């Protein structure tokens, strides 16, 4: 079921790196550094403004891939990676979309598990890619059986 999803993409969705959201996010990971939250520090920095931390794209909306339905429960987050051209700036607009990169199955001690690899993109208003994100989700055999995939 997931195999034929490989290569499918979502529509681009406009997101905003919101100041208040960045503040709440960095507080929740215990990293309220002035470069994220203090306007003066941001202005004096080489970025000319505040930035967002590398895992902030967790909050963005990447749109929906037509036909890709994931179970709400029973998923295991296996791997996560980010690649940046530069840090995200507070206040900027980022256009995000997602692409199903790969799906494969492997047998392990817990039965036959599915591995779904998804790549996500964040572009600036000129269409330059600012970051990409890869996420591998493990779907356990129990869940796969229940879903008939």
């Amino acid at each position, binding site marked *: 079921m997931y195999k034929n999803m490989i290569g499918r993409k979502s529509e681009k969705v406009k997101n905003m790196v919101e100041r208040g959201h960045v503040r709440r996010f960095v507080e929740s990971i215990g990293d309220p550094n002035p470069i994220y939250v203090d306007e003066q520090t941001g202005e004096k920095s080489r970025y000319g403004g505040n930035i967002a931390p590398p895992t902030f794209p967790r909050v963005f909306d990447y749109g929906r891939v037509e036909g890709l339905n994931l179970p709400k429960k029973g998923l295991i987050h296996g791997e996560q990676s*980010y690649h940046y051209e530069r840090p995200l700036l507070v206040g900027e607009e980022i256009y995000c979309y997602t692409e199903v990169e790969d799906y494969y199955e492997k047998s392990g001690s817990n039965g036959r598990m599915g591995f779904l690899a998804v790549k996500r993109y964040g572009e600036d208003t000129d269409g330059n890619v600012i970051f990409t994100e890869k996420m591998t989700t493990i779907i356990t055999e129990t869940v796969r059986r229940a879903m008939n995939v």
Partner: protein
Amino acid sequence: MKNITRLTTGEALDDITLPPVSRMDLIKYSGSSGDFNPIHTIDEEAEKAGLPGIIAHGMWTMGNLAKLFTPYYEEGFIQDYQIRFSGMVFLDDVLTLKAEVEEHTDAYLYFRVRTVNQKGKDVIKGKVVFSKYE
């Protein structure tokens, strides 16, 4: 604070040990990240999923680990950040964040990074490529 641009292979940034993981930490992260999977906040839901108790969001732990690099934003930025989630984090776990230099070139610092629990087990591990300015 160490001078990041002077670090050589085998040297490390200063470790950070976090306060014991609390339910409030995970409630706050659920809210700020939008990940409301109840196995991170509600005991009964975690038990129904076959877990001994609620577990931290992997992305909460990954977010925490990156703060080792935050003080160095004028010297460079995290260009690549790659993590494998290798163990679960439970309430009251005491986590220590670590980053060790693997290689230092003209343009980049390559770090091996990991978060270790109070039993000495890696809960997440991976790599950071820190791109230096100039």
